[in-house]
């Protein structure tokens, strides 16, 4: 059954990849693609700018750069609402754009002469599964990577905190938000049965999205910390064992600490197989 499902979804993937290939001219490298360098034909990129965007957004910085230089600089919709403070004191537009790109691991490129865009990196399906965790990490916003205590992508320096601590911290994150969010809704739903998103306060929206992102983040964290990454496992070392008389567990490494592995209940309380 699983082979059929995988085969069908691989077919669907091939179709969608074909569609992506048709609309994109960027070659498939299996890596996060590097920043596209802008053309050298727009001297205004070397114009010096000074501005102050306090508790603003990437979109506001782009608008300020456009205003001061007369060239069109826009932030892609996926990045324009990221909040920041940017104090620029006599730097070139190019330096400002590079600083944004370096801070957020994103890219800027020339869409056409006089038109520039700040955007996220572009990703392609990797051909080598060992590249998956690093690519997933690169796809995460930089602050989430730091929050999740992931190793630095460039230096590969591992975080001193253990993955367990990081996974637990991520596990706790949504609950504060969920609790506050649920509490804030109780009064509302005593009066009506539906609530549109535009009626939520910014804090409620933030709590809701935090809940959505982090409530199911555990598996992503495990992959990013290589805890259960299939390419790290040696089939010759995998073991099966039963815990608490009812859980069939797959232990991924023979010297793993107790409980480090995964499994499911196969017997109920009366010792009967769980269907």
């Amino acid at each position, binding site marked *: 059954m699983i082979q059929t499902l*995988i085969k069908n979804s691989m077919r669907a993937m091939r179709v969608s990849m074909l569609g992506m290939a048709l609309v994109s001219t960027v070659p498939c490298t299996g890596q996060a693609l590097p920043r596209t360098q802008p053309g050298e034909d727009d001297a205004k990129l070397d114009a010096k700018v000074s501005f102050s965007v306090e508790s603003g957004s990437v979109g506001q910085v782009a608008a300020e750069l456009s205003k001061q230089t007369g060239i069109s600089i826009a932030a892609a919709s996926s990045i324009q609402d990221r909040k920041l403070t940017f104090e620029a004191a006599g730097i070139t537009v190019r330096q400002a754009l590079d600083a944004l790109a370096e801070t957020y691991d994103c890219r800027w490129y020339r869409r056409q002469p006089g038109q520039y865009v700040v955007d996220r990196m572009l990703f392609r399906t990797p051909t080598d599964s060992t590249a998956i965790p690093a690519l997933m990490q690169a796809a995460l916003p930089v602050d989430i990577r*730091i929050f999740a205590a992931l190793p630095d992508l460039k230096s590969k320096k591992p975080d001193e905190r253990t993955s367990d601590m990081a996974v637990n*911290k991520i596990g706790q994150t949504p609950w504060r938000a969920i609790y506050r969010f649920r509490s804030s809704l109780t009064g509302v739903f005593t009066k009506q049965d539906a609530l549109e998103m535009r009626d939520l306060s910014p804090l409620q929206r933030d709590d809701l999205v935090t809940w959505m992102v982090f409530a199911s983040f555990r598996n992503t964290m495990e992959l990013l910390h290589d805890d259960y990454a299939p390419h790290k496992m040696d089939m010759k070392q995998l073991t099966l064992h039963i815990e608490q008389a009812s859980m069939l567990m797959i232990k991924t490494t023979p010297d793993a600490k107790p409980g480090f592995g995964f499994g499911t209940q196969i017997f109920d309380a009366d010792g009967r197989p769980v269907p």
Partner: protein
Amino acid sequence: MYNALLRLMKWPAVVTVGLTVAMHVPAAAQNRGELKGSVRLNQPVEIKFKQSAMAAILRDLSQRYGVSVIADGVPLLQSADLEFRGSLREALDRIADTFDYTITIRKTGIVSMMKRFKNPEERPQVIPAEMRQTATDMLTILPVFPYDVDEPPLWARMIRQLAPQLTPEQIDGMKQGKTLMIADLAPKFQQMMAEIIQLRAYGVTRSMWEQLYRQLDRFDSSILRARKRGVFTFADNGKSTASYAVMHETRSGGGAVTATTLGEFQREVKP
């Protein structure tokens, strides 16, 4: 003679090493030092702020000392007192530490500040459009597996399918604390185990990102709905309470609805 020649040949190497060291001393000092781009990081600065926001402190520093700074997000600590006399670099470190940030100084001298999350109450930014694009990218990177958000997940159901195929001796042995090497099992078990591992690692992760994509796609037009689950009447006082599930509902372009349960609440109703 030969040895004497060899000794002589070593001299240029010694001279070269000496020159290299001599040339690198000032360069190394400059690297530590303090000039990055056009910003002199070791210039003396004096800052004195009372209950000021980080953004205001950075603006003042930028205007007075010509340093450019990008700081991600808004710190949880809204304002702080800060009084300091020392180098610009030290001042930046002090500000970062106060507001729970780390700093990176770029080659151009522009300073990047990112939250370090030492304060457990600090959270990263979660912006619907950015997280939606992140989900799209994750779905591009991760291998394709069927969308599965059921409980138990498919990999767990497969383990339950596999278990009855083990012999009673194998099960009893494991119940007594023995372990089975998967490599010793029949090839069909090994194949199934490989699929379970792939599903557990990539399938569940992919389904999570797919669910997030569905939730955040058309997020602005999504709704929260309270769905009645049932009504309970208390025997002692005759009061009735209705139980509701709060659902988040998103409708895709094709009309498919993704509904996620957020939680339950009760409210009193007329019997």
